[in-house]
């Protein structure tokens, strides 16, 4: 049996964290969540009259999945802090996936505002899981600020471009004292497996499942990929060689 994923003292047997955005309806989402085996799932906070309804919280409660509110859409530390406080009020959790993005085209994290918001929220008693760039220095700064995990992107949100800088992810893993969760950019199962092979503690994905042709099937694929990648990481892979090395005896 694998060790549980431990974040801020909470234990999870699944190392796959999912988002709920992009699913065409709650029935599709429910089948995907069940197939993924996830125990922690992000939700967004929006005006009550906005599209999307309020059924997602009831669904997560029924499935026994912890909600992880995010601050998606926030551009400044002040916006993100207010959103986190509203999420705490609405959901009764001090856990927050902290997102502060720089612009709409890239949705890349705005590092200065992100660090500022993280610092304020930690001081305010929040359990902060920041969505961050694949920047090993910023990851360390966020950890020093008191974040309970760091969540570097593989590539920009929703692109499905996979992990563009695997070495940076390995550098983050090598120095992190908190769980590293690969967040954003996963396109298909091999990307999720690679994240785990690089040493990440978990994977967070949404689009690759919810917008797949068959979300339930892709959710199952991601579940297996995360398990396979984790196993491969702990199994100790063979070194890569330039020349062939026979696997059958010479005579």
């Amino acid at each position: 049996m694998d060790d549980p994923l431990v974040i801020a003292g909470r234990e999870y047997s699944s190392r796959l964290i999912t988002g709920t955005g992009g699913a065409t309806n709650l029935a599709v989402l429910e089948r995907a969540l069940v197939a993924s085996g996830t125990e922690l799932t992000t939700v967004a906070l929006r005006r009550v009259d906005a599209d999307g309804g309020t059924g997602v919280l009831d669904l997560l409660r029924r499935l026994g999945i912890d909600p992880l509110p995010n601050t998606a859409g926030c551009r400044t530390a002040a916006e993100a802090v207010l959103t986190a406080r509203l999420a705490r009020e609405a959901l009764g959790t001090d856990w927050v996936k902290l997102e502060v993005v720089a612009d709409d085209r890239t949705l890349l994290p705005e590092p200065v505002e992100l660090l500022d918001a993280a610092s304020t929220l930690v001081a305010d008693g929040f359990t902060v899981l920041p969505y961050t760039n694949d920047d090993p220095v910023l990851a360390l700064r966020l950890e020093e600020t008191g974040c309970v995990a760091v969540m570097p992107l593989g590539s920009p949100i929703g692109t499905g471009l996979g992990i563009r800088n695997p070495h940076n992810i390995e550098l983050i893993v090598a120095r992190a004292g908190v769980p590293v969760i690969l967040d954003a950019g996963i396109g298909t199962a091999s990307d999720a497996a690679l994240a785990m092979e690089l040493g990440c503690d978990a994977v967070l994905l949404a689009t690759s499942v919810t917008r797949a042709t068959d979300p339930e099937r892709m959710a199952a694929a991601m579940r297996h990929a995360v398990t396979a990648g984790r196993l491969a990481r702990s199994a100790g892979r063979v070194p890569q060689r330039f020349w062939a090395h026979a696997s059958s005896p010479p005579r």
Partner: protein
Amino acid sequence: MEVRVNGVARSVAAGATVAELLAVLELPASGIAVAVDGEVCTRASHERTVLAPGADVEILTAVQGG
């Protein structure tokens, strides 16, 4: 008097509280969060928070996302 609720002008009784506004809107007190003029109004203070004319009220809930 007029207040703004999620960006839309709305008439409420003078001296209405946040709790009374939620009742008029038929919203539950749980599963939502209220901000008045950019500050969180906690559930415990819904009853005693009186809306001023022109108050900017945001009422949020969890939706699919992330």
